[in-house]
């Protein structure tokens, strides 16, 4: 199964939950960090990196000698990435979305594929767990193409090794976040019980609900704010699978780079329990046999 750990708001504890769940997962698992703008999962899982490669996107390269200045490419480009100034063709590779439309329509063969570096994907092993991450190049604006690259690589290994995937998603509910949860079998929304937490949680719930995937909540820092998030979940039949109490000890463990589930025996039990519940919700549920 693929479990997406998502959240409308940044800093609610997605990485804490992803790392903790991966560390107690009872069957083969691959942890995937798709928060490519700010990947943090590796700081807690401390994988041994076994390989990495740069990821690129195709952008057009113009050949002035062949260009007839017909303007077909600049007409079709929706992203202002190629334009004709007089009869000089200028490309702006950083604006390009890599759709290939300009290459497709150029009648003179004046455009050839070049590439722009998006960032890099790395992979490795943390104990028994597989690990993948993407890291966006600083200055690169578009994260979805790199995310697609990381996800495809991780999915290939997951299929080959019959492992589950736990995906640490980017925050928010716009294109990158939706992209990250699109292929998931189960979505776990991590929130905190504060007005900010609730507002962003509601956005995420509304964004992901139309996908008709099993969805559940984890409340981090329970006891810190109010109980509006819990009430929202009850009203919308969203199961709350775990509440991690606000506790200075937990915050300190996190600040030292510890996996929270490994910080205290009680938290370990809480995350083992969360893992069991999530596995029940997903496909090929180990619980169905138990219920039969």
């Amino acid at each position: 199964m693929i479990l997406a750990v998502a959240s409308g708001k940044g800093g609610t504890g997605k990485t804490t939950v992803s790392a903790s769940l991966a560390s107690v997962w009872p069957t083969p698992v691959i942890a995937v960090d798709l928060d490519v703008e700010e990947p943090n999962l590796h700081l807690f899982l401390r994988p041994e990196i076994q390989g990495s490669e740069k990821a690129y996107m195709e952008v057009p390269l113009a050949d002035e000698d062949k260009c007839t200045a017909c303007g077909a490419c600049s007409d079709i480009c929706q992203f202002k990435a190629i334009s004709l100034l007089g009869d000089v063709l200028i490309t702006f590779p950083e604006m390009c979305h890599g759709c290939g439309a300009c290459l497709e329509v150029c009648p003179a063969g004046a455009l050839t594929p070049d590439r722009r570096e998006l960032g890099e994907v790395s992979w490795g092993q943390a104990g028994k767990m597989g690990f993948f991450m993407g890291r966006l190049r600083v200055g690169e604006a578009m994260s979805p193409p790199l995310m697609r690259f990381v996800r495809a690589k991780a999915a290939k290994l997951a299929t080959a090794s019959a492992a589950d995937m736990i995906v640490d998603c980017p925050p928010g509910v716009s294109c990158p976040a939706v992209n990250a949860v699109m292929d998931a079998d189960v979505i776990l929304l991590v929130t905190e019980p504060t007005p900010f937490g609730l507002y962003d949680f509601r956005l995420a719930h509304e964004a992901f609900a139309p996908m008709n995937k099993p969805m559940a909540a984890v409340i981090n820092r329970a006891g810190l704010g109010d109980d509006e998030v819990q009430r929202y979940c009850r009203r919308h039949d969203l199961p709350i699978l775990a509440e991690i109490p606000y506790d200075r000890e937990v915050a300190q463990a996190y600040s030292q780079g510890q996996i929270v589930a490994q910080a205290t025996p009680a938290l370990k039990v809480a995350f083992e329990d969360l893992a069991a519940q999530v596995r029940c919700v997903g496909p090929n549920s180990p619980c169905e046999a138990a219920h039969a």
Partner: protein
Amino acid sequence: MPEILIISGKGGTGKTSITGALAHLAKNKIICDLDVDAPDLHLLLAPQAIQVHDFYSGNEAIIDPELCTYCGLCQEKCRFEAIIEDGEAYRVDPLKCEGCKLCVSLCPAEAIAFPQRHCGTWQVSDTRMGPMVHAQLFPGQENSGRLVALLRQHARELAQEKGYELILSDGPPGIGCPVISSMSGTDLAVLVTEPTPSGRHDLERVLELCRHFKVPAGVIINKCDINAEQSRSLADYCAREGLELFAELPFDPAMVQAMVRGQVITEYQKDGLAGELARAWEKIMQTAERKKAA
């Protein structure tokens, strides 16, 4: 008229709570919430809308099943896997379509429409702390630097027209398109971080981005007492990198208590964090004026 931007790289470091407090302390300013994906500042400032506008950005492809001849060319050529076989016809997944128009131009049956995409709304509002410009994208839309740019442009125009002396912006998390758009040409970025491995890692990346775009930056360490050793190491890092350290704020549940009441921390209490923030604001303003003059 300096522009000051509050960012962090990492989410959840306290950007918005701090921006709210600074907005309370600042005089004669316009407030912007540039986190158009998951905005939260309005929860503290309770804005009353004066004008609400629709935001359209780009286009999306829509296949007319009546005209589609099922040739499959669009699906073959789409690089975003946005075209799905749906029984006898094809349809476009709006979440995957990037609006590149390739399928529209290739379709031999001219079966693909290309309407503008309605991505969200933006508004100008009144708050108890002055005017505010903010937005809300619809879920799943491209987290658009365009909307951020539009908000900033509007704030500038409003400031010039009405004689406001400062633009104070709450920025988006991350280092991608919306952050890049919020940063260009700003006078000072205040980087809010926390003494954790993630806080440190993301601070380094967002600082690299500031340098890439030549934006002066200073730092606030929030929740500094959660890990004194990490805080010291962050302070040393700032000194080494020539970054002004505006404040080191201890963790205080009063931040959340104030938020629950819909107040900013400087309205909720007089000393403690509020005093620290008042001192930080003095330094931030002085630095911003200096950078603006430079």
